[in-house]
């Protein structure tokens, strides 16, 4: 089997304080595949204005479910970066 380098577009969503930090509620991030949630976070922190203020290891969700930073992402996935939860 041959390894085919490819890239994918991830829809990244920001909430609450994180949305304020980056001044937006979402962004499209292009990553080389295979990639993990952690890779997406690194891109956000490196490239988005204000992104550096988001912690290196935030809570995250992929496609509406909690996910670890080690979870892999695929083209078209929605990754959300979640500030510490404060509901109830």
């Amino acid at each position, binding site marked *: 089997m041959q390894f085919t380098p490819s890239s994918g577009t991830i829809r990244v969503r920001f909430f609450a304080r994180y949305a304020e*930090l980056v001044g937006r509620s979402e962004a499209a991030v292009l990553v080389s595949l295979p990639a993990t949630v952690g890779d997406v976070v690194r891109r956000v922190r490196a490239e988005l204005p204000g992104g550096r203020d988001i912690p290196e290891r935030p809570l995250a*969700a992929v496609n*509406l*479910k909690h996910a670890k930073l080690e979870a892999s992402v695929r083209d078209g996935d929605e990754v*959300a970066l979640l500030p*510490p939860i404060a*509901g109830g």
Partner: protein
Amino acid sequence: MRTYLTRDPLSIGELVAEVASPQCGGTCVFLGTVRDGPEEHGVRAIEYSAYEEMVEGEFGRLVTDARSRWPAARIAVRHRLGRIAAGEASIAIVTAAPHRAEAFEACRYVIEEVKRRVPVWKKELRTDGTEVWVDPSGRPTVRPPDRPTHV
């Protein structure tokens, strides 16, 4: 599909009616209300926001988990979003079960799990005009909002 979110004031009576059943002798309700106590700094209201699409799914999974632990329990939950004045309820959980122990345990489980995993956030709107994001331990997470967000 059941919706767990609302922007309207919560009605305990409505939720109690949702779970009422002749088989259930014990009903437990938990109400979380916006506090303005001595640990706070003059809270007029809290602005609740959420990752709404995920909240619906997460509540669904959470209620399913509770039902698998207490199969006879009937559970209703509603979280309110938007601006909620001090003294008003932001969440109402009602559990009914044949016996009271199950009702209490299921109710407590639901609120603990909500705090752990349902993506909702709150910003205190204080009487001095400042607005502060609150973290789960109840401490403000950040700088006052009059400083620039990124320098």
